[in-house]
Structures are given as C-alpha cells and as structure tokens.
C-alpha cells in the first residue's frame, strides 16, 4: 500500500519553514526520506526506525510516530538548495521492500 504524502507541492520563500507528511495505512518498521532534484538521482536524507525517534541534520529533521503510522519531515529556514521533490519510502518489516510515496515537490523562491 503506497504511503500518502502531503502536500503534493509547496512553494516557499527562502527562509520559510515547511513540513512534509508521509502517512501509511499499515504498521511501519521504518521510514526513509530522499530528495530528488530535477534530472538527478534521488539522494538519501535519513532513515527512521519504529520507536518514535527523531533525527536531523543541518536544518532538516524528521520524526516518526509509530502510533499514527506517520512520519513528518521538517525543513527549517529553507534554502534555495532545498528545492526538489521529496519522497518517503516505507517498510513494514526489516528485509522487506520499500514502498514509495508519490513525492512532494518543494519550490524555494529567493
């Protein structure tokens, strides 16, 4: 079952914050976040395992709410380089395939 990402697209001014959500109808083992710039390969951001952990690096962080079967990606004080499409991949068991969301397109304007 494909996870649902919201919003589908968001336009921000440089310096503004954004939240991207990834929801699943099934219990999750982990959530993976990747960013893909136009014409490029997806690039890894982070993996969160069940247990409700939160991770972050630089001004990008994420949380994983096991009960709600949802993960949220937080982009703080967005930079132009954050533009791209953000994908979440969910996994219901270890050693299982990732099921990917349809992506959230993020556009940052100067």
């Amino acid at each position, binding site marked *: 079952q494909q996870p649902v990402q919201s919003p589908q697209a968001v336009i921000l001014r440089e310096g503004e914050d954004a939240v991207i959500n990834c929801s699943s109808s099934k219990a999750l083992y982990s959530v993976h976040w990747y960013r893909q710039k136009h014409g490029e390969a*997806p690039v890894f951001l982070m993996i969160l395992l069940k247990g409700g952990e939160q991770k972050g690096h630089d001004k990008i962080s994420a949380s994983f709410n096991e009960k709600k079967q949802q993960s949220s990606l937080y982009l703080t004080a967005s930079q132009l380089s954050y533009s791209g499409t953000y994908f979440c991949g969910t996994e219901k068991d270890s050693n299982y395939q990732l099921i990917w969301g349809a992506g959230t397109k993020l556009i940052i304007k100067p």
Partner: protein
Amino acid sequence: GAGVSQSPSNKVTEKGKDVELRCDPISGHTALYWYRQSLGQGLEFLIYFQGNSAPDKSGLPSDRFSAERTGGSVSTLTIQRTQQEDSAVYLCASSLVGGQNTEAFFGQGTRLTVV
C-alpha cells in the same frame, strides 16, 4: 566504483524491440534494486537482488520484463517487445547489505523512450 553507474543514459527504441539496461553497483554492495519512474511520478519498485538471487520479483510489471545479476555485481534489466507505456526513467540503486536499514545509493538512471 565511486558510485552506481547505469548505461545507457538515454535509449530510444522502436516499439516491439528488446532493450537491455545495465547497472554497475558500488563495489561491495550486496543489495541491488531496480525502480521505474514515470514523468513526474514516484518510484515504482521492480525487483530486488541480494547477491545474485532475487528474493522479490513482485514488482515486475509483466513477463516481458526480466532481470539478472551476475557475480554479485553487474545487473541487467531486459525488456522484451517494448511498448510505449514502458517509456520511463529506470533507476538502479545499491546498498551495502540486504534489508532496508541502510542508505541506498542511486544511479543517474536510463531514460527509455519507446517510439
């Protein structure tokens, strides 16, 4: 190699012809994945290799699609009798170990256009 390498980067083929797409994973990575991405869409899982074996082929869209991996390294995705709906970017990714708790590294993809 330094990263995941895919070839060709672009392929235009006539409907009905067979095509082979190649993926060279990062040296030492045991897990290899093939995905398909249509224009503006998310990633569609095709197949997963652990070493040379494919424990999960559930994503292959039809029997025209097949993949193999030899020597625990290079993988080839073959599409027979191509159709226009096969047009997409085919992405390959590899990770150090099987299972999904590790970062996957993606290649630049092969853009396939069936005319």
